[in-house]
């Protein structure tokens, strides 16, 4: 039976069919149903136990009161959701800037040749420094330091510095992701392009980068899940975004429920992106297997 399953694709004479199809279909059926049931049961038992411990702990009544206040939750949610719009703006503006800046840095670091050495050195220092420093410090230093110089014409809006800080922090990471992608394209691709008379830049632009970027989309999305969450860090320099808003509400009521509302907003926003990223990774893996 298994032999027939393995022969299936070849029987149709389609040599380009991805291998391993038979194997996957064999795994479904009764066995899968049973493992799903076991998974559900063990999850239920595990989290049920944790919940039981929490609810029966001596501090539970107080925690329940200060974290799970239903009325306050409903009350604070609109304000918090409105403040989240600031995070969304931060996220999208910074993301676009990061994608562009990081690509420039990755390309600068990938092009050999003595002419670009100063730029390469500068990019390397930048990436090292910004990956070494905690993000909060960069946000503080930029957000308070630069407006503090009181130079004519320099913006004072904390939102501006929030965008700049997040862009600088994340571009350092994202440029490394791009660079890994560029390095993953086999040198023979570049050689083939150069042998046709394309310049180094053209080979990069038309042959290497399109392949590199396609490969790093899942890790890029992964970094953007991080960025989505790190937008709350700019609350430290006075941007009233979702976390700052929940602090304000919390202070007004001496109750932590707004934080839970904030957490819920992030869960709703971030989990779909995480699932999407995983789906993309799985799809790429299937394609790679099919092409091998």
């Amino acid at each position, binding site marked *: 039976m298994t032999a027939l399953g393995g022969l299936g694709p070849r029987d149709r004479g389609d040599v380009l069919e991805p291998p391993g199809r038979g194997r996957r279909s064999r795994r479904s059926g009764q066995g899968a149903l049973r493992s799903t049931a076991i998974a559900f049961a063990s999850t239920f038992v595990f989290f049920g136990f944790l919940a039981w411990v929490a609810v029966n702990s001596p501090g539970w009544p107080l925690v329940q009161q200060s974290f799970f206040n239903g009325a306050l939750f409903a009350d604070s949610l609109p304000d918090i959701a409105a403040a989240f719009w600031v995070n969304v703006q931060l996220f999208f503006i910074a993301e676009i800037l990061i994608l562009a800046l990081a690509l420039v840095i990755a390309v600068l670091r990938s092009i050999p040749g003595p002419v670009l050495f100063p730029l390469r050195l500068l990019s390397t220092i930048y990436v090292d420094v910004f990956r070494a420093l905690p993000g909060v410090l960069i946000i503080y230093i930029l957000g308070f330091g630069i407006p503090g110089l009181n130079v004519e014409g320099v913006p004072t809006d904390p939102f501006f510095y929030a965008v700049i800080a997040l862009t600088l922090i994340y571009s350092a990471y994202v440029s490394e992701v791009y660079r890994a992608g560029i390095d993953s394209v086999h040198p*023979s691709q570049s050689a083939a392009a150069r*042998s*046709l008379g*394309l310049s180094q830049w053209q080979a990069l632009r038309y042959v290497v980068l399109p392949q590199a970027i396609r490969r790093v989309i899942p890790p890029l999305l992964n970094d953007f899940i991080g960025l989505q969450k790190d937008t709350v860090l700019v609350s430290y320099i006075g941007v009233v975004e979702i976390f700052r808003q929940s602090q304000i509400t919390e202070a007004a009521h001496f109750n932590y429920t707004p934080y839970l509302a904030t957490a819920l907003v992030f869960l709703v926003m971030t989990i779909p992106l995480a699932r999407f990223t995983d789906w993309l990774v799985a799809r790429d893996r299937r394609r790679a297997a099919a092409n091998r």
Partner: protein
Amino acid sequence: MNGPGDAAGTAAAALRIVGLRKSFGPLEVLQGIDLRLVEHEVVCLIGASGSGKSTLLRCVNLLEPIDEGRIFVEGEEITAPGVDVDRIRRRIGIVFQSFNLFPHMSVLDNVTLAPRRVLKLSRPAADAQALELLRRIGLDEKAREFPDRLSGGQQQRVAIVRALAMRPDLLLLDEVTSALDPELVAEVLSLVRELALGGMTMLIATHEMGFARDIANRVCFLDAGRILEEGPPEQIFRAPREERTQRFLQRVMEAGRL
């Protein structure tokens, strides 16, 4: 422009290599290569793996920097300092063992990329030229497919057409059938044979001895980075002078490849 070796007074050679040396670290892969191809000549390089065939081709295409020696194409020294390598490479096509098609582009875009970006052909002009070339090798129906939908033999033929689309003066073929399943070798070799009949100047590194004997005007046996023996195919394959050539051909024959 002609060097002292060109005193014969004939037209400039299509390719002339003088005293070419190339090392990778401590390993000297090419230990002084001298070679001359006239226009329309087909020269096959034979020799064991590691004898320097591929490196020689890569040096001619300036994909590897050379350590010593000079290379001339149609009388112009391409190894001179400050020469525009992109301009030189337009005139020299190379096809690799591993095809190296661009996997993210259709067959048509693979063929038209360089004509459009380097020769600045318009898209319609480049497409028309590419489709005509693809039609000649019977792959015009695959023009919109991506390379991974093609067999190895088809991919390699597209790679050859991609090089031809730049209308090179000289074509370098680096073991173009070595990565192919045996039943796909013939279609690629017959295309190369057509090119030879069409007058294309070619320098071919190959393990296909029968093919070399058929197609080559001249065969060079490379051994340890030197051209140990060269001559017409009949002489090299029937009556090799050098003992190493004899031994190499003996081994090839034992492996059933001749």
